[in-house]
């Protein structure tokens, strides 16, 4: 199977931009509901437009993900670890898409105007219903916790690849210059959507 050694540059840019914004979003969210200080007001004022921005970004990101095949996982990763890697990535995608939609639906169900700024607002996507609001509001909270835990696991796994396994996984998502194995395999071809052969031969299994 032909795949690139690194993620598409656009995918990498989206990954790190969204990583920062999503972490900010989670901290803003958990902070604004647990304070009665004036921080509550301005955190809330950031939370909604940032959520809408993240919804747009995740749609672009999903398209990029489907258009440009990501690099394959190292062949010597144990099957369970491979399965967890794939499952956690799709969980992250699912949560990234679900969270802003639930937030939007929740405000709609609560009868709130979905204000993104002082006058810009989104239409409701659900009719007003106290029951729907309550379920969506709690889903928004618990899925946010789940998203945060998944991110912690994702970060731990990325660092495990970078520091313990020291394989190609972490560099495939960074912008650091990598020492190519062969001079003709510098991963620049990805811009065209074409792909390079796997840069390394399958490795022997872990001792």
């Amino acid at each position, binding site marked *: 199977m032909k795949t690139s050694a690194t993620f598409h540059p656009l995918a990498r840019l989206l990954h790190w931009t969204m990583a920062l914004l999503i*972490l900010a979003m*989670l*901290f803003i969210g*958990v*902070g*604004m*509901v*647990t*304070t*009665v*200080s*004036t*921080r*509550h*007001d301005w955190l*809330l004022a950031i939370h909604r437009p940032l959520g809408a921005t993240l919804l747009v970004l995740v749609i672009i990101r999903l398209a990029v993900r489907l258009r440009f095949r990501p690099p394959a996982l*190292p062949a*010597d990763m144990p099957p369970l670890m491979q399965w967890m890697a794939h499952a956690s990535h799709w969980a992250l995608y699912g949560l990234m898409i679900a969270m802003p939609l639930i937030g939007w639906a929740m405000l709609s169900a*609560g*009868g*709130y*105007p979905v*204000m993104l700024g*002082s*006058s810009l*607002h989104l*239409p409701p996507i659900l009719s*007003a*219903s*106290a*029951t*729907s*609001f*309550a*379920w969506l*509001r*709690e889903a928004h909270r618990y899925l946010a916790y789940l998203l*945060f835990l998944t991110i*912690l696991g994702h*970060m*731990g796994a990325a*660092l*495990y690849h970078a*520091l*313990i*396994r*020291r*394989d*190609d996984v972490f560099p495939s998502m960074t912008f650091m210059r*990598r*020492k190519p*194995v062969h001079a003709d395999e510098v991963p620049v071809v990805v811009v065209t959507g074409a792909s390079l052969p796997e*840069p*390394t031969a399958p*490795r*022997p299994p*872990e*001792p």
Partner: protein
Amino acid sequence: MSASSSKPPHLLWRWCAIGGAVLLLALAFAYTGGWLSPQRLTPRRIVDALQNGGGLHPGFRRNHAKGVCVAGYFDSNGAAAPYSRAQVFAEGRTPVVGRLALPGGNPYAPDGSVPIRSFALRFSLANGQQWRTGMNSMPVFPVATPQAFYEQLQAGAPDPATGKPDPKRLGAFFAANPETGAFLAWVKTAKPSASYVTESYSALDAFYFVDAKGERHAVRWQVTPEAGDAAPGPAGDDNYLAQDLRTRLASGPQRWHLKVTLAAPGDPTNDATKVWPADRTTIDAGTLVIESEQAQDSGACRDINYDPTVLPDGIEVSDDPLLAARSAAYANSYLRRTSEEAHLPGAARTDAHGTEAAR
């Protein structure tokens, strides 16, 4: 390229770095969410204190629990439009869903038990924006900060021995908080009114109007009644307000005037315990007309959170610290009562009518 087949040096330190990074992020999240600082005043603690004072009544608001839904419209005369570009102040009509209520968390409180009534309004602007406001029939708020409000709730909590607030604790609180003086002086002479309709209701907190040029004007607003037959409530009846409202509406719509007071430079915008001098310019922005009422367990106001920070373009919050706290606490109360309505796992149970079940 890969070195995964060989053991990296300082393996233990590498694992520590990974664990440390994950732990640090988790701790930062826990700190932000208040899990590491139980002393932080949170919306939950404020609403717990309200619930402690009024009792747990599933499905009901945790404050201003007893009330009635009303509906009507606001006819703007355009007089406030030079100060606020909000569509609601342009000449014309804006539909309103409101709620008249008693302060306190007990939905069965006698109407004569407290001399204060409240009026909450939601203006639905044609451009899709909303203006929500919660007003009270008193000239000032007792306290200026969320912390003092919380302490007042604690001082007024029912004594487990008597089931009533301990006057000594309340007295000590008021003595320690001299800013409550203006409220106490007012409440001493205030009588529970026989009608919602004869009362003036003030937003208490200051806001900013923003005009078409983007200039901000500090304001407070209130609605003043056209009905002039104010009288003290009848003795021996605990539920006269709703009946009075029905009777009056049967004979025609009830009207208030929306009065907007402009601050002079130096007037406090961050202290709801202080009135502004009486000579400040006041604009009559138009007429609030209430045409109908509905029971609060089925009316249109039931599922509205009258969060005073839900504002249209042209009105902004001031630096009054109570506003953010009201927004945060109202949201917590709203989630509790809608969760009870939805029978969410862990929520207090309501019966089919949304009123409390026998406990």
